[in-house]
């Protein structure tokens, strides 16, 4: 497998304007605003092979989106080198655009009052796709993403999950070699998240495309990607296979129980109370000591269960754990 993305010492420093309080500062800001350097990405290096699916994770402000913007050619770096499919993104942005697909979870490329089919047709024009090729490709994706019933509905009538399926299809239409996904499951419910994760993974396997995914949701990383790169404060913190990260850092699950009883106790190894309120208890479960099924079973035996949620620990906690391990 040849290199798909090569990043070497990539660095981005933003100059941020700072405004003080008072009339004097306001006047100075008007004519000569004081600035402060903010290092968003601090000399990171990594390499991604063709067809690899890599999660690029970190807390808010870690530098994930800035890196993706540089790799798509939107942003020019302050220093360092990057090559995507052999091209320098900020020099060959337009040529590269034909080979890249992008999904930004909080932004849409679909026309709001029109059916998604119309946007797909426009994208075929924008990516210089031949009509016959477009129809064939769209047919494949419509089948894979089960879009047939949605194609003629105006986008405004689609649910968030349906819209996201259409967004991903829109990004895959021109068969990109590299797919950048920025928070593709943000705001979705559990079922929609699972569907989107499966679809992204399947599409990447089928097309042999490289995936670079950023997310706050550890589930996205676990279900879509084989490798994870963690950054924080613009620096690369960790680069390893997802299964290793899971073994080392994602041993915990957060189990929230809503019960008829105001208070319940679970005496199981590796299970601790994280938060408590009347009729609601949040447990932290070390799955290597006690599997989640046993926790649920024990809770059912104790009383009437009204609701139950099982979540991965937040990304911030994983990063904290990585830090703690690296700097004991």
């Amino acid at each position, binding site marked *: 497998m040849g290199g798909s993305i090569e990043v070497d010492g990539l660095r981005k420093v933003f100059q941020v304007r700072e405004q003080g309080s008072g009339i004097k500062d306001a006047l100075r800001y008007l004519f000569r605003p004081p600035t402060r350097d903010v290092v968003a990405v601090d000399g990171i290096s990594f390499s991604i092979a063709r067809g690899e699916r890599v999660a690029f994770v970190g807390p808010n402000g870690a530098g994930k989106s800035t890196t993706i*913007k540089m790799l798509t050619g939107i942003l020019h770096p302050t220093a360092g080198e990057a090559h995507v499919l052999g091209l320098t993104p900020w020099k060959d942005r337009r040529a590269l655009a034909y080979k890249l697909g992008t999904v930004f979870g909080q*932004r849409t490329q679909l026309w709001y009052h029109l059916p998604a089919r119309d946007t797909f047709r426009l994208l075929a024009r*924008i990516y210089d796709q031949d009509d016959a090729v477009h129809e064939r490709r769209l047919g494949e994706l419509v089948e894979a993403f089960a879009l047939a019933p949605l194609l003629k509905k105006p986008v405004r009538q689609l649910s968030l999950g349906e819209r996201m399926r259409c967004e991903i299809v829109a990004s895959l239409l021109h068969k990109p070699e590299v797919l950048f996904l920025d928070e593709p499951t943000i705001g979705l419910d559990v079922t929609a998240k699972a569907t989107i994760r499966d679809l992204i993974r399947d599409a990447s396997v089928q097309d042999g495309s490289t995936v670079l995914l950023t997310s706050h949701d550890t589930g996205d990383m676990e279900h879509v990607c084989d490798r994870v790169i963690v950054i924080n404060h613009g620096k690369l913190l960790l680069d390893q296979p997802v299964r290793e990260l899971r073994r080392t850092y994602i041993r915990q699950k957060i189990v929230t129980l809503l019960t008829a009883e105001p208070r319940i106790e679970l005496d199981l190894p590796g299970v601790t109370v994280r938060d408590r309120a009347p009729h609601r208890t949040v447990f932290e479960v070390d799955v290597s000591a006690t599997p989640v099924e046993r926790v649920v079973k024990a809770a059912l035996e104790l009383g009437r269960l009204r609701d139950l949620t099982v979540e991965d620990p937040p990304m911030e906690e994983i990063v904290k754990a990585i830090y703690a391990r690296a700097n004991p």
Partner: protein
Amino acid sequence: MRDAAKYIAVLRLSARETFRARGEVFARSVFMVILLVVFSRLWAAVGEGAGLAGIGPAQFLWYLALTEWVTLGIPLFYLSIEEDVRRGDVAYRLARPVSYVWSKLAEGLGQVLVRLVVLGIVALAVGRYLAGSWPDPRALLCALPLGVLACVVLLLIQVLIGLSVFWLHDGAPAFWMIQKFQFVFGGLFWPLDIYPGWMQSIAAWTPFSAAVYGVGRNALRYEPEVALRTAMILVLWIGILGALVAWAYRRSLRVVEVGGG
């Protein structure tokens, strides 16, 4: 050539979307009817006493119908660009093999074309009802291409205002000021013929004189050579403003590429 096909595809899709979301076009049509009724009555009252510049009520009504046709045909397009800048969408749209600013202009033109068709029908129907007669059909035919050219000029001005948000952070003050210039120097409510000479001279140096009065004056008198000259002036303004948009876009790209938008 390939790029032209892309922008035409954007224009067509934008026209379809504007047609689907007809609420705003309907509201503008109602506003146009109210304006025509109120101002035609006003002009009839003033004109009868003063006989302003020899322009009769029917002529004035058709003048107003044409100037409003152009003015209301332009959407508040700068707001769309302003929103893209504020949300950071300009940056994300750079990852596509199509220019943001020219596809945005094509989008605006798609909106304009639907508005011009709908408002044109409304203006003809209400104008005929209120004036009781048709203007010279040859003059109306001249106004048609002039109206489209005028809208391109006015849309380019809005694109410039939209791009200015990269530096000014708010397009509203610039839009407010330019809109007032358009009303005054374009002769939106009163033909430039009744302005003092010095104001007519100033107006001639702005794009609004050709873009608004230049279209409306066809209702006052049919002069094909003047219409042709107006068309040439509008094309010249399209060139100037197009170059300004290209320059401003290049500058704003630098803001995005260096500062992240």
